[in-house]
């Protein structure tokens, strides 16, 4: 008789429920192509019961397979009056998954050997001395790099409060009229204040260009008292309305 504590392996040492199932199938010397569901379910549950409590976040997957096993078992036990010939074996999906998983697992063991072998071979990670010293780093990029770079940039910009929202179109005519309206109302405009009031960078830039146009066309004039002091914009009184 096999005692329960002959399984000295902890749940954590399995990569997942399929790993545990494969282990049990081997342990019990079962045929993977024809799994006795009752046996494997009992073994599997026995294994889970040994855990004092299941960490739902990390071990929910183990419970999911437990539920699946119980479901398959109940399907097999259902009395049927007529058994359609080509009816699918309820175990088949699980068996296929286990076979796929077994292949992956075996490939892993081969790859692990190759990894070990490769680790004893060293390649240079640096560029040896070369004639032309124009070295810049050049990369091979994938979609992930592209997206990661962009969203990292956006996060940085968010901190610095740079915004650029697409979709809204500002016409320079409207903007010019807005500026002239403000000038008529307020006598003068603090250039920097006005610029900073804009929520979106493209609108701010548009305002900037409109102001430049107004200055160029001698409709307004800008005055800076001393270097680095604030720039004030005034409407030229003699300008045509």
């Amino acid at each position, binding site marked *: 008789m096999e005692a329960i504590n002959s399984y000295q392996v902890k749940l954590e040492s399995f990569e997942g429920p399929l790993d545990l199932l494969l282990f049990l199938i081997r342990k019990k010397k079962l045929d993977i192509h024809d799994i006795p569901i009752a046996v494997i379910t009992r073994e599997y549950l026995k294994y889970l019961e040994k855990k004092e409590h299941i960490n739902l976040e990390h071990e929910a997957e183990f419970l999911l397979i437990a539920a699946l096993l119980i479901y398959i078992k109940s399907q097999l036990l259902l009395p049927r009056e007529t058994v359609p010939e080509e009816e699918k074996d309820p175990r088949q999906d699980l068996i296929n998954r286990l076979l796929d998983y077994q292949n992956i697992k075996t490939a892993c063991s081969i790859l692990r050997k190759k990894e070990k072998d490769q680790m004893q*071979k060293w390649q240079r990670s640096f560029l040896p001395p070369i004639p032309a010293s124009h070295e810049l780093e050049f990369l091979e990029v994938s979609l992930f790099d592209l997206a990661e770079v962009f969203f990292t940039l956006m996060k940085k910009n968010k901190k610095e409060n740079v915004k650029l929202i697409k979709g809204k179109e500002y016409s320079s005519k409207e903007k010019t009229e807005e500026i002239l309206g403000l000038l008529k109302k307020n006598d003068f405009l603090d250039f920097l204040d006005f610029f900073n009031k804009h929520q979106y960078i493209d609108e701010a830039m548009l305002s900037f260009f409109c102001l430049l146009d107004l200055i160029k066309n001698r409709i307004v004039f800008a005055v800076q008292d001393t270097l680095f002091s604030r720039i004030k914009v005034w409407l030229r009184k003699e300008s045509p309305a």
Partner: protein
Amino acid sequence: MNLNLKSIIESLIFISREPLTFEKIKSILNEIPDKEIETAISDLIHTYSSQDKGIKITKTGGGYLFITKTENDKWIKRLLNLEKKSKLSPAALETLSTVAYHQPITQAEISTLRGVDSTHALKTLLKKRLLKITGRKKSPGRPLIYRTTNKFLIYFGLDSIKDLPSNEEIEKILGEEENSK
């Protein structure tokens, strides 16, 4: 033309940080017949194949690369002051192997095949550039799809994806395990 092809190719493979492909060699040495380049490469590999050499040329990731001799590993570690290179975690290796055999594949498919959520392992592998995202699947939700990279091949010393352990190899191992029960 009076070029010392073997010498040139030796310099090129030496200077390249990643496996130098035949196509690249060809495009650098334009108008040299394939045959001559091939001969020069195999001559070169032969020169380095002696037991006495501390470095060799290997074909990996679709190209040629200089690497050190396995037996000298111990001394290199002393030089670089390294204990050991770090292995992939079991979860990362399993995820990598899943992608390798089932690519192109989505995250959900990987998790189904492994029976566990694979987000964290995927991140590690993307960061190590052993996996890459290469577009979206044409299915509902249009999930992102993953593939192995050239760095994956080099990491395991494979020349191409065809060099992955074959079904026969896998079955042979499974058979042996069966018998050893």
